[in-house]
């Protein structure tokens, strides 16, 4: 872990300024607080147990998400201090390494009965509840932007994207939701 205490000083300005919430009867888009996003990199084939990582997370549902073989994201709404991060990263070694991505990735929540129809305009991942159950997470393209998608409820997804793409993805999601805002 870096000795430089860069969080949260470089995140004084939020990535999604002025677009924090869009609500209609069938779709809600909201920017989630820029808390912590930790990338855990283990070895494929020797997986850390998800239960063990959940013990290290803040305990909220779906705080730990799979991100490809042997990799996870641990997320939460509260920013972590440098010493909390150091403790957590020490706890997962030597099986895995942790990288602080709190300033690098932005979370957006999309929910509502039409959320699958809306996201299906941008991604080819199968979003049906049978293939993409609650708690399942995957990385995919939404339009031309790579994003990590987690199903957090029957009608709710969390979309995590690199900070520099957050505004652009928000605009895309808003446009994809457009037909559901007209009523």
């Amino acid at each position, binding site marked *: 872990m870096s000795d430089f205490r860069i969080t949260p000083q470089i995140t004084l300005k939020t990535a999604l300024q002025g677009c924090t919430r869009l609500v209609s009867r069938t779709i809600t888009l909201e920017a989630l607080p820029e808390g912590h996003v930790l990338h855990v990199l283990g070895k494929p084939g020797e997986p850390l147990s998800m239960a063990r990582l959940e013990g290290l997370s803040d305990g909220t549902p779906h705080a730990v998400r799979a991100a*490809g073989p042997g990799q996870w994201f641990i997320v939460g709404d509260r920013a972590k201090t440098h010493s909390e991060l150091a403790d957590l990263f020490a706890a997962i070694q030597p099986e895995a390494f942790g990288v602080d991505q709190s300033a690098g990735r932005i979370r957006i929540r999309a929910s509502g009965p039409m959320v699958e129809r809306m996201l299906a305009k941008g991604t080819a991942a199968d979003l049906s509840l049978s293939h993409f159950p609650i708690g399942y997470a995957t990385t*995919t*393209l939404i339009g031309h932007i790579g994003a990590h998608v987690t199903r957090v409820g029957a009608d709710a997804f969390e979309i995590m994207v690199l900070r520099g793409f957050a505004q652009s993805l928000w605009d895309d999601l808003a446009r994809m939701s457009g037909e559901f805002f007209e009523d």
Partner: protein
Amino acid sequence: MASLVPCPHCGARPKEEFTIRGAALARPLANADPAAWMDFVYLRDNPRGRYEEHWHHTAGCRRWLVVTRDTTSHEIAASRDAALDTTGAPHP
């Protein structure tokens, strides 16, 4: 078209999420004859029909895959993680 590529980790995904490297060939030993290395690095057969290619799931799980694709029909017969051999065991 091979527009939907089956990723063993992520399921069927569009080809736009992948980067194609080309034929999956057996790598010569480090001390092999320069001709064998010339062959491995530069020379390609461009076969007609089914052959194995390396695909990288760039916008997904970021794993290298070995995809068995037919160059005439673009049908995909199989895909596996490149870290595994054809039996599913890790490469030594």
